[in-house]
């Protein structure tokens, strides 16, 4: 009996400690992460974790460094996020526990990354030193270093890095004007294939099924297309003619291609330096229509059921969102969520969209059926919004 009492009191109340630990484990509700998302707060280097069911902030992860232009990808189990910071840091974040698991300074200047098809490798897209570095998703140990060499040993800045079927990464070299594919079946010995793409590829996308890689060109009109089912056919230059007649406007923010709006046989892509969306028929890769807009599109994102396309804009029109109805390609709604609307993310089935308004320090949630505002959350200079459902989508 005396021993029993000592077990719960005295100098080392081991029993109490054990009880505390046990009740913690027993009381903590087990939960999933399927309705969790991360919002990048670019100025403070934080992430806010949100829950799309409760429409609330559920956690804050701090100390991620320079998060301008930051993006992230998720592990296949939707538990971990891999965050790519502008300052070259790669951070592994546990979204169940809202904490940093591991962090490596892998380059001086970086612009994004991707997770391999099998979820075991993380690749980073680097400006300095120009190239792609590949890490173990488990430990963040470096397994490969792909230098983006061109000309006489110069290194090009790498953009538009995506994962592709066949355990590949595909990316573009800005200065070199090339597209490379890297097969990482043997992670320590990536097999590289190089293609001439055109002048200054600035961003790229891969089609949702993983067949086509399309890079936007800044230095010339048109896009570079690589058919990954048939790489030996090389690059095909598509829609070079789209802007012959009207002069390009200055571009205050580069468009992003990641939204990859492919609806039926039609791609909806932002035209660089024009107030337009291009509608491209993928059977012939021709522009079949242009949708006039009141600003330069940045993100062009389809609602998951493809009935709508949502578009945000570059400065000075970046306080709006336009919604296009895909039945008649008309702008049916204009929303004004706040100053500097940087990004939007749909819930996986599309009933809601989450929008970041950077200069008003808030994130808004809209019902996509009636455009009513459902919630408004404070966030510190929010930029990208990323839901865990991306874990199961190729190229995101």
């Amino acid at each position, binding site marked *: 009996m005396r021993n029993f009492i000592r077990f719960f009191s005295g100098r080392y109340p081991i029993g109490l400690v054990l009880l505390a630990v046990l009740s913690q484990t027993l009381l903590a509700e087990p939960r999933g992460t399927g309705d969790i998302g991360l919002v990048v707060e*670019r*100025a*403070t*280097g934080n992430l806010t974790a949100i829950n799309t069911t409760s429409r609330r902030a559920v956690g804050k992860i701090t*100390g*991620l*460094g*320079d*998060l*301008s*232009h930051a993006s992230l990808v998720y592990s296949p189990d939707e538990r971990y996020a891999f965050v790519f910071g*502008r*300052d070259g*840091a790669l951070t592994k974040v546990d979204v169940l526990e809202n904490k940093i698991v591991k*962090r490596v300074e892998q380059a*001086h*200047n970086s*612009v994004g990354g991707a997770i391999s098809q099998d979820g075991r490798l993380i690749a980073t897209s680097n*400006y*300095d030193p120009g190239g792609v570095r590949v890490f173990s998703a488990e430990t963040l140990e470096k397994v490969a270093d792909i230098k983006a060499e061109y000309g006489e040993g110069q290194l090009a*800045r790498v953009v538009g890095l995506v994962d592709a079927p066949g355990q590949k990464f595909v990316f573009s070299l*800005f200065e070199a004007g090339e597209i490379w594919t890297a097969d990482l079946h043997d992670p320590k010995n990536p097999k590289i294939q190089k293609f001439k793409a055109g002048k200054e590829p*600035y961003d790229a996308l891969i089609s949702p099924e993983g067949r086509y890689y399309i890079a936007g060109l*800044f230095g010339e009109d048109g896009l570079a297309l690589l058919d990954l089912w048939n790489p030996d056919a090389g690059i095909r230059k598509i829609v070079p003619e789209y802007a012959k007649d009207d002069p390009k406007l*200055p*571009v*205050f*923010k*580069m468009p992003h291609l990641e939204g990859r709006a492919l609806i039926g046989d039609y791609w909806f892509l932002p035209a660089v330096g024009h107030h337009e969306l291009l509608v491209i028929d993928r059977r012939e890769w021709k522009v079949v229509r242009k949708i006039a807009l009141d600003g330069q599109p940045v993100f062009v994102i389809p609602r998951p059921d493809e009935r709508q396309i949502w578009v945000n804009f570059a*400065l*000075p029109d970046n*306080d709006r969102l336009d919604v296009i109805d895909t039945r008649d390609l008309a702008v049916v709604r204009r929303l004004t969520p706040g*100053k*500097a609307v940087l990004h939007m993310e749909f819930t996986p089935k599309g009933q809601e969209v989450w929008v970041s308004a*950077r*200069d008003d320090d808030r994130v808004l949630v809209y019902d996509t059926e009636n455009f009513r505002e459902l919630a408004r959350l404070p966030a510190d*200079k929010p930029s990208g919004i990323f839901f865990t459902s991306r874990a199961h989508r190729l190229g995101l």
Partner: protein
Amino acid sequence: MRFGLFALLVSALALGQVSTPTPERQQALLDLLHQDCGSCHGMTLQGGLGPALLSSALAGKSEAMLAGTILNGRPGTAMPPWSRFLSREEADWLVTQLKYNPPRFNDATRP
């Protein structure tokens, strides 16, 4: 945004004080620098698609040339002209800040 800026310019001109932006305007200019210029030059200005705009990188470059680049852009490159958002004086002020009074970025972001 456009109208606000326009109004500000007009009132600045009316008062005859075009040389130094008001404190509020200075803050707005620094925000523009980090956020919007930052989308190409990096939020901490260490470079991205555009080159670094750190004082070390700009040392030895003429102020008039740099202000001209900001206002008129560089045709053939991704650097756009900012003259519809910035006056000459504001561009000069930004260049002076960049070269001699480098805006220190919120140290809280350092892990």
